[in-house]
């Protein structure tokens, strides 16, 4: 039976029109998916960390502790939200609100499968890059408004870091865009149907993954939080649900970064035997696993080394990669 024939759906459908209808349901799905996904990723992170460190991780709530992060979320919602006396009240309040905006908006253009995409935009990739930079702004706002020196250092580091890492990120994306000749997400995926871009662009793919790790402030680039130096960086003063929002944004950004890598380099929804959302989600979560795995293996870089690494290693290599790609495309 066609879902659109149901009376209530039909009414709504008639009222909104097909395009808007898809948007509304898509957004509702996204709003449901974002918190659940981050709860799941927190659990995955704790579980992987546990087993890497030869301990079981959360075990008590639910089978193998799978409900642990939901219970934690309930706890965080019940907690008092403390605003420090000397903090800038409005900025302090706005920062966690704005940090979830990119987390939600970026999902709009991600093509999970040929039909599962909320909105097809001609410049989908640009939208994601534009919005994901907002998180840098909210981190700066949160860190500045906290009026805490640790938070301030963390926030300043975050801004410098995102400037440094956006460049190689865009450069490595550029080489893919040159190849597929489009900024449309679904077309980029469609261009990879026989062979994934990863085969042609391994260097760009690795640079892209490194840069998304840095963009989402994950270890070994987690200087913004840097527990052993800055207590917990920009969200030192945040409590309760506000802290949880920062957390949610971090894990969602991680998923978006992995999804982007899947779209750009790992063939999107294409996979052996059949193609569809299954392959996309599987690949995205595998990449999330890789970032988690990296986090629990390496020490943290120092701030100047982080900058050196971006400006002296990643940018030259990605520029070189872009040049070679352009020449090869032109010649062939």
């Amino acid at each position, binding site marked *: 039976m066609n879902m659109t024939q149901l009376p209530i759906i039909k009414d709504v459908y008639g009222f909104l029109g097909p395009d808007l209808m898809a948007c509304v349901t898509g957004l509702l799905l996204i709003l449901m998916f974002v918190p659940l996904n981050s709860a799941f990723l927190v659990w995955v992170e704790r579980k992987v960390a546990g087993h890497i460190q030869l301990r079981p991780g959360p075990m008590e709530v639910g089978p193998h502790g799978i409900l642990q992060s939901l219970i934690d979320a309930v706890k965080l919602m019940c907690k008092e939200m403390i605003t420090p006396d000397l903090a800038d009240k409005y900025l302090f309040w706005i920062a966690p609100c704005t940090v979830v905006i990119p987390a939600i908006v970026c999902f709009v253009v991600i093509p999970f499968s040929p039909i599962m995409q909320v909105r097809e935009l001609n410049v989908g990739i640009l939208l994601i890059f534009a919005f994901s930079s907002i998180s840098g702004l909210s981190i700066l706002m949160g860190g500045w408004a906290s009026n805490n020196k640790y938070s301030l250092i963390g926030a300043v580091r975050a801004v410098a870091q995102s400037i440094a890492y956006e460049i190689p990120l865009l450069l490595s994306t550029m080489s893919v865009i040159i190849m597929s000749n489009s900024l449309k997400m679904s077309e980029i995926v469609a261009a990879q149907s026989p062979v994934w871009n990863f085969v042609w662009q391994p260097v760009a793919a690795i640079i892209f993954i490194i840069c998304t790790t840095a963009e989402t402030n994950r270890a070994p680039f987690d200087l913004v939080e840097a527990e052993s130096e800055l207590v917990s960086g920009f969200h030192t003063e945040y409590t309760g649900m506000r802290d949880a929002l920062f957390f949610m944004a971090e894990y969602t950004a991680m998923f978006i970064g992995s999804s982007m890598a899947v779209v750009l380099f790992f063939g999107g929804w294409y996979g052996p035997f059949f193609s569809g959302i299954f392959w996309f989600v599987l690949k995205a979560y595998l990449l999330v696993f890789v970032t988690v795995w990296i986090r629990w293996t390496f020490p943290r870089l120092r701030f100047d*080394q982080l900058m050196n690494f971006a400006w002296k290693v990643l940018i030259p290599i990605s520029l070189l990669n872009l040049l070679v790609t352009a020449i090869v495309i032109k010649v062939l």
Partner: protein
Amino acid sequence: MLTIKTIDDININERLYQLNLGPQHPSTHGVLHFLLTLDGEVVVKAEMLIGYTHRGHEKMAENRIYEQFYPNTARMDYLSGMIFNTGYCETVEKLCGIEVPKRAQYVRVITSELNRVASHLLGIMDFVMGIGAYTPFLYGWDDREQILDLLETISGSRLTYNYSRFGGVRVDVDQAFCDGARRFVDRLRGRFKLYKDLITDNIIFIKRTIGVGVISKDVALDYGVTGPTLRGSGVKYDVRKNEPYSSYQDFKFEIPTKEEGDCMARYLVRMAEMEQSLNIIEQALDNLPEGPVRADVPRFITPPAGDCYHSFESARGAVGYYIVSDGTRIPYRIKVRAPSFSNLFVMNKILPGHFVADLVAIFGSIDVTVPEIDR
């Protein structure tokens, strides 16, 4: 080009700011308070404020008999409690002229070296955790757990052992302990490759540690730095070798040194020292003599009037106990020379010009226990 001005050059309100790192901070082991003056993220001036865990151990000693000071010794440096405990007993034995049986001396050497390995493991892994890698910490913890289990089988406790007694040790070691110690020696030797792969060779670790926090030979000697920190600066000084106490003259072992004096050198010295400790343990187990483990000493000891200084090597450096006796059962004065104190305050000299992130690395590589400083 970043030029670091000294604190006198510019108005403090203009650009410098102060940051209280500690006393409650994830990486100031225990409760140490750094009062940093920062220019951006660069340390211009660092002050170490100590005393948050002052419990007055030295004063306590003046109000109790010699035996009652046992539990205090392990609580000064809780990470090498066995060494501190044994050292105190050796000092009093030296004061009273008690001859310790050879077997007891060997058992003390074995337990002290096991404790030293445990302390070094914790020190290294904590250093690595300060740099940001959490997983090696727990691998090291796993190894350390084996030592604690082993020491628990003979002393009954895992951290504050109270194992040495005047004239010997409390409980004789059994075959199970010796076998366990041998198994541990083999296990840890096999694990060194893991640490090499995961930490020593890691490019991020290398970049974070080489050339960071260089303590030159002269500075180290001026500040009275001892232990692995001094040996990392290229001075071949180890109390175990230079003034052998207990039975250390019986064993063959090297004093690992490095010339660089940076965090990496200190880390490598500790790693090499663990291997040497394993050698000592193996030799001691091979040549463990038979006999009693405790000399015939009175129930409550009464040293003759006089004073005595005894120095020994803990995991952090040369510890000194100075005991003044007035001929009664209660000591007149016990003074402890804690190595962490001098090792910590050399940071005053070397910190300016480093980043806050380096502070954590340097602090970790010097491996300080704060309760030992505060006593």
